[in-house]
């Protein structure tokens, strides 16, 4: 059960289920899997469409959404976050389908965050001082 991957808690960009998500972020695109048959967005990623069993293609979306909920994390629950707290992590409901919620860091003063406020995606390198020499570009939500 213990996690031995050296780059944890950076994402594993070689995991085939999520690799296209991070590859998209690296070129500045927010991509999510879309069903080739029924056109619905499938999130979290799966091998096939859970509704119609269609094949999936990673597809760019607008990168616009609304802030569904957020948390101001003040305690570091993992050593890697000790120099990151406090920070805001939240769930962003995509404009294309609000039932797709992307987890990400939310920029800005927590006191100014409001329910369902519009946010847009930016892309920034994520690093941890516990994983020196590694960075992964990830979606980052800004007002």
């Amino acid at each position: 059960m213990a996690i031995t991957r050296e780059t944890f808690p950076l994402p594993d960009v070689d995991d085939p289920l999520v690799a296209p998500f991070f590859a998209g972020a690296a070129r500045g695109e927010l991509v999510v899997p879309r069903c080739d048959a029924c056109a619905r967005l499938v999130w979290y990623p799966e091998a096939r469409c859970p509704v119609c069993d269609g094949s999936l293609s990673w597809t760019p979306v607008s990168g616009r959404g609304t802030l569904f909920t957020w948390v101001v994390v003040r305690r570091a629950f993992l050593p890697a976050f000790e120099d990151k707290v406090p920070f805001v992590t939240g769930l962003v409901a995509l404009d294309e389908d609000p039932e797709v919620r992307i987890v990400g860091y939310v920029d800005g003063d927590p006191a100014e965050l409001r329910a369902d406020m519009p946010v847009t995606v930016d892309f920034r390198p994520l690093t941890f001082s516990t994983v020196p020499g590694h960075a992964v570009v990830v979606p980052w939500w800004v007002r």
Partner: protein
Amino acid sequence: MNVHDWGRAAELDDVRGAVAIAGIGETAYTKASGRTARAIGAEAAERAIADAGLEPSDIDGLTWSGTFADFDAGAFHDHFGTSHELWTSPWGGGMAWAATAPYLAAQAIREGRARHVLNVFPVAWATQRSEMTGGPGEVHAAQSLKQNLEVPFGFFPQPVYFASIMRRHMLEFGTTEEAFGAIAVACRRHANLNPDAVMHGKPMTLDDYLAAPMLAEPLRLFDSCLISDGGAAYVTTSLERARDLKHPPAVVAGVGEGYSGSGTHWAQQRAFTTTPQVFSAPGAFAMAGMSPGDVDVLTVYDPFTIVGLMQIEDMGFCAKGEAGAFVQGDTLHHDAGKLPFNTHGGLLSHAYVLGIAHVVECVKQLRGTAAAQVPGCEVAVYGGYTGHMASTLILTADR
């Protein structure tokens, strides 16, 4: 969104009045004890069997947790030096399964596979955490989608998941921090009446709750359960047989089980501020021929205050979104309230033994032997919760 779009109730046979809990056993509930879960489970099992007035050789059925794998048939025989045949199921133990284990027992008893079925659940997370060999967060971090799409963004572990649900409940329904505080304070009040509770002797007021540090705003320290070592067990048998044993039977009047259809990730639950209790509780009440108004004591799985609050709504004790107002004041108190709640102290202030002690508390309330006894308790209900799954157990006095 129609609430019924996102999950379903399990179809269960009617077991009303068929079986009863005839024996209960508990270990000490502590911080890190240095003991293994297996040893804790053995002690709880031994005490439950003795409480029922039975011998280990009388136990011919065992339900345990396949997820935790801490007290299986091998552990039973090792401890008791027995070798007889045991009907077993790994779908027992704690969490949601603490409510449905008596249903499995009822089926096994009806089919003649067993007469006396023991359900055991031990946990040694306090010891494991201090030894860095595991704990509640690790299960989640090991799941690849959480590891790649949540943990890197600080959406981890459970306090953060449930803080996000708290926030959304506050945004949707105007639920206040005082409402969450009322749940924490009621649990602590009961723990202070219960010498077995880990937080016994540590009173807490609403002001104390509000003054405690935010771990993951809006979630404070005392919105979070303890991390504990301890375990409990109970023996289920036919009602007829239970009437011949030492203690008055706690009759299984209704069981329910409900599932979310939107997977096991909290971030992606379609009904974000609702638990699958909406699918579980109605079936249990229908089986028992009862309604929430008949309940004298409610124990619910309360890893965080928000989980208790949502289940109070989802089981029908008040309308959705209204628990914030409902729980304030003395509503949840054992002696004055209209819904005595987690009268042993709950996961928040009794011990984090994942719901097994909640069921034991229901039995004690029906026997009239609880530390914070509700006078004349005849109906005690446990609401179990495991994220995408919820369960309901309605126990009644034998009348």
